[in-house]
């Protein structure tokens, strides 16, 4: 499990690599929460291209981070969602609160649009 990130105009772009299950969820959660201690971050854009697996233990990780940024008026979006993960997102209704984009650029453009 690996989490890497970069900041770009109020948005945190986070790449999550590996498998997100109950075993790895704690580490991902902690990593994200420490990144979110930076109060200038409003939005999170996830790059899930290298996320090879996610089960329902991942759902809580996304909802929890959504709660944090939505209180700041921000959004969570996901990009490059592979089919297994897409299915988990669909079943769980995560797309009601998290928007899906094909690319990071599109996600950032959309945030920029609402933001500025």
């Amino acid at each position, binding site marked *: 499990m690996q989490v890497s990130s970069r900041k770009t105009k109020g948005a945190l772009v986070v790449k999550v690599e590996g*498998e997100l*299950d*109950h*075993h790895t*969820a704690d580490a991902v*959660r902690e990593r994200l929460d420490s990144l979110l201690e930076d109060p200038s971050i409003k939005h999170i854009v996830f790059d899930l291209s290298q996320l090879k*697996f996610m*089960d*329902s*233990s991942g*759902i*809580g*990780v996304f*909802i*929890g981070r959504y709660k944090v940024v939505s209180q700041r008026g921000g959004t969570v979006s996901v990009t490059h969602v592979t*089919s*297994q993960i897409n*299915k*988990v997102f669909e*079943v*769980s209704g995560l797309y009601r609160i998290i928007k899906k984009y094909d690319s990071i650029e599109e996600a950032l453009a959309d945030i920029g649009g609402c933001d500025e």
Partner: protein
Amino acid sequence: MEAINEMRLEFPSKSQNESFARVTVAAFAAQLDPTLEEIADIKTAVSEAVTNAIIHGYENTIGIVTVIAKLYEGKIEIEVIDEGKGIEDIEKARQPLYTSKPELERSGMGFTVMETFMDEVEVVSAPGQGTRVKLVKYLKSTGGELGRE
């Protein structure tokens, strides 16, 4: 109907075994020559059931999780068994969003995911008696490795 092949896997309820369990079942299921999507479905459902055995069945104690997989022509049956706490109200437990551990950021979607990704989900459980989850999936593909014998 007798199974073409079967296996039984036992391991302690440690979270690092969640990925081991789903990879093992996927490797076994490969004998039925499933599609990539079918394999992903099976992995996801097994991951849910094994995770439940670890966090809900045994909570913070260590117990044995047993996974049994049986292969039939065009069908796989998987049982995930724990001898842990058991479930008092199975109907409630299976409802979407119901979780007894919201403090752990559990989403309560485990059973719903199993039901979506598999064709049949059967739960046998009673308080103090442990839990047995049976997952069944019918595979569109046929034959594969087994067909060649």
